[in-house]
């Protein structure tokens, strides 16, 4: 029970590491910085494991396990429902999954970073930020109420800003950092409004209270009559859109690739960007009561999945491709949640953390090998030179493409399954998702082929291609292992059995679920297990994935000049995709420029220099003038000062004698 009573330890360790490295790291040798950073995260992971072990032994009655450590904010004690927020941590199946994923992937990426960042300046700064991020992410996951979650939410945003702009001397990096921060803040604004609305509605921000209130005292919204629940859900979801880079606020994520690759792996693939999904899953009782919001989530997710995939088709920067694929995968997760298959969404979140983390790390390894080159068109033929990277990346690609037997397959299949035949099934969304799946496999294999196959498109004399050191490749292998077997917990379901993952998470999503409860996602049709397995394996997504694979092979290996031809033929589309639908430009025209104009011509020239400066200078002028009048007294002669003092004393004594003196007599 020790860890359960002291969950804060999990949070304490990373923040300690961050503090130590941040404050004293400058003086430390690299070894010390490493041991502090990785050590703290490793200890945190160990703590998490112990926590989970104890969680297993917990009786079902005492789940979720909530521990309140101190009262954080109090206001309006006397009013009917006071505003009181405790710094409380909650542990249930959902947070367990998140905890394990975050801490473990984080640990691996920390180890990887030791090798990747070896030759970078600001070494200690990097690791201090990373630890800080771990702290906030764990806070976000463990928080027992929306306020604590929000702290983590903003904290990870801050860390992402700091890490994207890690090479702050590079303008593009600094700008990317700002862009990410501001764009997410836009979503966070609505998120915050959502929180306030939630408090206004439920009178509390603690999950238990909120959901209980929603379950007992409130009528679920319907499509016909959207109510406050819908509003809350939508507002919160807008926050999630910002954080998880969905349409239309996804623009920051591709630019975020300016940051160091481990950062992209940890923050912009594995953990932070999935915060939105986690939030939606966590808020499932509310979403389940707000069908419109649900539908919105599903639509945004599905459309994003497809949209981002299309952009990814034409990108040449290896990390950009991965960025867009991340966006589209996140879209999948939202799609899953949107159709009520939260478990599937979380499941995809986990597997995605594995293989997308792996993909980024391998990409990093490639970049490392190419000594900083990110353009795929300048790569090729690396297969032999960096075998470990190649094999691991191949595994990851298979996983993300949803080839049967790999992690991605199970999770993605579950989502699509739910979209097809779930409670909130919607066929067109399913079609979109499937299409996206095909595109995914296409662009992923395109990436793979461009990078590793064909003949090198760089002069091999200058670029001394080399495999990364062990401390980078070992995390790759571990993640590769997970990308294969990470999804097998759900495997039995295909054989008509039950999905252990779903079974494990079920309590979270059923406790407050509105009747009718979500039926255990069993076989959709009365087919025999064998046939089901066959269907599942031979299901349309898989077929499309394979087609995508073949297409990629035909385009980029069989006859490499086909893409150029195609591009010439479909020139308009190609340009459109290459420029990401000109979204950045549109935003620039619609939002940035007017804003700039406003702030320059109104806020700056009129308000600031006119009103504010005027006020300040005015005060100063008044003071100066009055001082000019009275300064004559300041003769600088101590004796006259003394005389003035005495004069005052005399006056005072006179007063005293006038009032008290009589009494004394």
């Amino acid at each position, binding site marked *: 029970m020790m860890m359960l009573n002291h969950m804060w330890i999990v949070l304490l360790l990373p923040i300690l590491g961050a503090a130590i490295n941040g404050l004293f790291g400058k003086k430390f040798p690299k070894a010390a910085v490493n041991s502090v950073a990785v050590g703290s995260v490793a200890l945190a992971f160990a703590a998490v494991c112990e926590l989970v072990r104890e969680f297993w032994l917990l009786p079902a009655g005492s789940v979720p396990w909530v521990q309140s450590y101190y009262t954080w904010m109090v206001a309006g004690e006397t009013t009917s429902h006071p505003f009181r927020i405790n710094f409380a941590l909650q542990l249930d199946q959902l947070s367990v999954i998140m905890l394990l994923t975050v801490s473990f992937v984080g640990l691996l990426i920390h180890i990887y970073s030791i090798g990747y960042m070896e030759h970078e300046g600001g070494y200690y700064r990097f690791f201090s930020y990373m630890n800080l991020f771990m702290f906030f992410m764990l806070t976000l996951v463990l928080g027992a109420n929306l306020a604590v979650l929000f702290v983590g939410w903003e904290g990870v945003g801050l860390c992402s800003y700091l890490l994207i702009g890690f090479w702050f001397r590079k303008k593009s990096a600094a700008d990317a950092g700002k862009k990410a921060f501001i764009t997410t803040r836009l979503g966070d604004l609505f998120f915050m409004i959502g929180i306030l609305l939630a408090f206004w509605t439920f009178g509390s921000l603690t999950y238990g209270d909120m959901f209980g209130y929603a379950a007992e005292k409130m009528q679920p919204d319907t499509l016909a009559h959207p109510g406050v629940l819908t509003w809350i859900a939508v507002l919160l979801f807008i926050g999630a859109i910002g954080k998880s880079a969905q349409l239309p606020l996804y623009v920051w994520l591709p630019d975020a690739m300016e940051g160091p690759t481990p950062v992209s792996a940890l923050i912009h693939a594995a953990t932070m960007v999935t915060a939105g999904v986690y939030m939606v899953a966590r808020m499932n009782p509310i979403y389940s009561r707000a069908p419109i919001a649900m539908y919105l989530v599903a639509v945004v997710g599905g459309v994003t999945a497809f949209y981002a995939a299309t952009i990814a088709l034409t990108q040449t920067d290896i990390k950009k491709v991965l960025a867009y694929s991340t966006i589209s995968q996140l879209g999948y997760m939202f799609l899953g949640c949107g159709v009520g298959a939260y478990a599937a969404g979380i499941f995809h979140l986990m597997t995605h953390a594995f293989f997308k983390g792996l993909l980024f790390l391998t990409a990093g390894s490639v970049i490392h090998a190419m000594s900083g080159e990110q353009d795929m068109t300048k790569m090729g033929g690396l297969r032999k030179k960096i075998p470990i990277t190649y094999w691991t990346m191949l595994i990851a690609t298979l996983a993300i493409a949803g080839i049967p037997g790999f992690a991605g397959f199970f999770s993605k299949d579950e989502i699509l399954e739910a979209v097809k035949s779930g409670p909130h099934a919607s066929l067109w969304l399913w079609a979109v998702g499937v299409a996206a799946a095909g595109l995914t496999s296409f662009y992923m294999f395109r990436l793979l082929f461009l990078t590793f196959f064909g003949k090198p498109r760089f002069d091999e004399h200058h670029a001394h291609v080399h495999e990364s050191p062990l401390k980078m490749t070992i995390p790759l292998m571990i993640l590769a292992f997970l990308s294969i077997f990470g999804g097998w917990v759900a495997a039995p379901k295909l054989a008509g059995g039950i999905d252990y993952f779903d079974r494990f998470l079920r309590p979270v999503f059923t406790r407050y679920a509105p009747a009718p409860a979500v039926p255990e996602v069993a076989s959709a049709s009365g087919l025999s297990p064998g046939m089901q397995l066959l269907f599942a394996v031979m299901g349309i997504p898989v077929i499309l994935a394979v087609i995508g694979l073949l297409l990629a092979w035909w385009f980029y290996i069989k006859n490499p000049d086909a893409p150029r031809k195609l591009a010439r033929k479909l020139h308009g589309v190609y340009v459109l995709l290459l420029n990401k639908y000109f979204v950045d430009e549109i935003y620039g025209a619609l939002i940035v420029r007017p804003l700039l104009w406003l702030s320059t011509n109104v806020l700056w020239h009129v308000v600031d220099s006119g009103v504010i400066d005027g006020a300040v200078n005015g005060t100063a002028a008044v003071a100066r003038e009055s001082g000019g009048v009275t300064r004559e007294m*300041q*003769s*600088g*002669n*101590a*004796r006259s000062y003394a005389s003035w003092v005495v004069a005052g004393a005399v006056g005072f004594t006179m007063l005293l004698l006038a009032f008290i003196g009589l009494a004394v007599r």
Partner: protein
Amino acid sequence: MIIPTSYYLVLSGVLFGLGVVAFIFKRNVIAVFMSIELMLNAVNLAFVAFARAHQQLDGLVFVFFVIVVAAAEAAVGLAIVIMLAQNRESLNVERVNLLKF
């Protein structure tokens, strides 16, 4: 034959007044300091007299504190005076008049 407290108090009042006069009248920085000490002494006398009159020790304790403060003030003040004398060759407070408009 006992001495009324008022004698002591009047004496202390007179001393204090003289201290004030000295404070205004003296030009020498050190002398000005001394006049401050004089005032403090006068106050001490009043304290002791009251303590005696009311048969309470608090007055004495306060005298104690006053003396401590006086000592501290003398230490710092005289250090400043030395600085002053070194920086501008005069101890006359009226010649040390930089602190003005």
